C-alpha cells in the first residue's frame, strides 16, 4: 500500500503495512450489511462453507476482530518488498 517509488526500481526498499482506519471501517460496514443466502439443504459441508459457520466468522469479523494485531506482527521485524 505505502511503497514509495524510487529512482532505482531494482533497489530493495523497506516496506511497512499501514491500512487507513477508514478502509477497516468500510470493511466492517460491508460485513455487517451482508445479505445472506438460505441455509444449505444438507447437514454437512458438502455444498461449501456452511451458513452458520460463515455467519459466526462474519459476526466476529464485523465487530471484535482486530486487524491491527496482524499488522503489528507483520511490521514487527524488518520486511522487504
Amino acid at each position, binding site marked *: 500500500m505505502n511503497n514509495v517509488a524510487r529512482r532505482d526500481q531494482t533497489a530493495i526498499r523497506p516496506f511497512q503495512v499501514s491500512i487507513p482506519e477508514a478502509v477497516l471501517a468500510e470493511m466492517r460496514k460491508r460485513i455487517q450489511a451482508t*445479505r445472506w443466502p438460505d441455509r444449505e439443504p444438507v447437514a454437512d459441508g458438502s455444498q*461449501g462453507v456452511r451458513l452458520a459457520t460463515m455467519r459466526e466468522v462474519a459476526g466476529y469479523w464485523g465487530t471484535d476482530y482486530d486487524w491491527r494485531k496482524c499488522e503489528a506482527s507483520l511490521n514487527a521485524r524488518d520486511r522487504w518488498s
Partner: protein
Amino acid sequence: MNAVAQPKGSDATAIRPFHVNVPEAELTEMRRRVKATRWPERETVEDQSQGPQLATLQKLARYWEAEYDWRKVESRLNALPNFITEIDGLDIHFIHVRSKHKNALPLIVTHGWPGSVIEQLKIVDPLTNPTAHGASAADAFDLVIPSIPGYGFSGRPTATGWDPAHIARAWVVLMKRLGYTKFVAQGGDWGAVIVDVMGTQGHPELLGIHSNMPGVIPVDIDNVARTGAPMPSNLSPDESLCYERLATVYAKGIGYGYQMGLRPQALYGIADSPVGIAGYFLDHDARSLAMISRAIDGQPEGLTPDDILDNVTLTWLTDTFVSGARLYWEDFQAQFSFFGVKGVSVPAAVSVFPDELYPAPRSWSERAYPKLVYYNKLEKGGHFAAWEQPKLFSGELRAGFRSLRT
C-alpha cells in the same frame, strides 16, 4: 421479496393468483449496492478470455444505477396471468395464458440458467395469439411458463432432491392440475435437460418435446469431449464441428457449472452483490458474452441491456442466486449429462440455432430421438433463443409441434 400471492388456504394444491410488487426501498437498496461496488482492476488481456470485461460491467452498472427501470418489466409480468401452486411441498410460480383459439395445444416452456420466466416473455403473444403474428389459428398454444424451483418467484428448496427428474415429474403434476391431459413440452438450457428427462419418464400425457439445446451427444463422444482426448476419427463433417465446439465448451467454458455443481454454498459474495450476479450471469458462454457485450456497447442484437438487467434484477430481488446455483449441485448428484443422450422415447423436435453451445447434427439427433419429427437449422440466434429471436423461435415451435396436433 414482497411479491404478493394470495394466502394459502387449507388446500395447498389450490392455484393462487400472484402479482409482483417490489417495494421501492428494495430498489433503492439495490441501486445503493450497485453504486458502492468495489471493482477489480481491468483484465490483463485485450479480449473476453478472462471473462466479462471491466469496461462492459462498469457501463452496465452505471446504466443500472442511474437509468434502468425495473417497473417496466414488473408491468409486463403483471400484464400476464401469474399463479402459484404448491407441488411436493414447494411453491411453484407460473405464467398461464390460454389462447382464445379452440383446440390450442397445451405447451409448457421451461427456462434455464442464468434465467427466469423473463426469457419467455417475448414469445407469449406469438404462441397464444398467432393470428396477430402472421400465423394460423391452427398453430395456437395454451401456454404455461413455470419458474424452476429455486428460481424467480418459485419457492427455494430447503431440502435436497429437486433435480431435473423431480422437476420434470412436477411439471406433469402442474399440467394435469391445470386440466391438461395431453400436452407438449419445450426447453433450452436446464429447460432442455428437464424436457429430455420428462421424455424418458413414460408420461402418457406427454405428446412430445421440442428442444433448442438437444441432448443428443452420444455418451462415448460426450466422455471423450469432456476429457479433452483427441477427436474420434470416424465423424462426419457436421459431427466433427459439433465435437470441436463441445470440446471447447468443456475446456474453456462452463467453469461456473463445476463451481455451482460442487460448491454452490461457497458463493456468498455473489449472493451479496448485484454486480456480482451480473458479472457471473453475463458469462454463460463465449458467444453469448460477446453478443451481450456488444449490446451493452450500443449494438443490440437479440438482447438489450434492459433484457439483461431485467433477469439479473429479478434474481437479486428474489434472492435466488444460490438457490438457483443448487440445481447444478442436484444435477451433479443425479449425474444427468447436460448435453448427452438420455433415452427420450416420445416424439421430439429439434431447432439448431447457430450460436448455441454446439450445433446438434441431424445424425446424432436421429439417434438420440428415435421419434424425431422435426429438425431445422436456423440462420441466426444463440443459446437464449426464445429471448433473442422470439419470432424465429415461435415459428420453430409452430412447425416442430404441428405433426403432434390431433
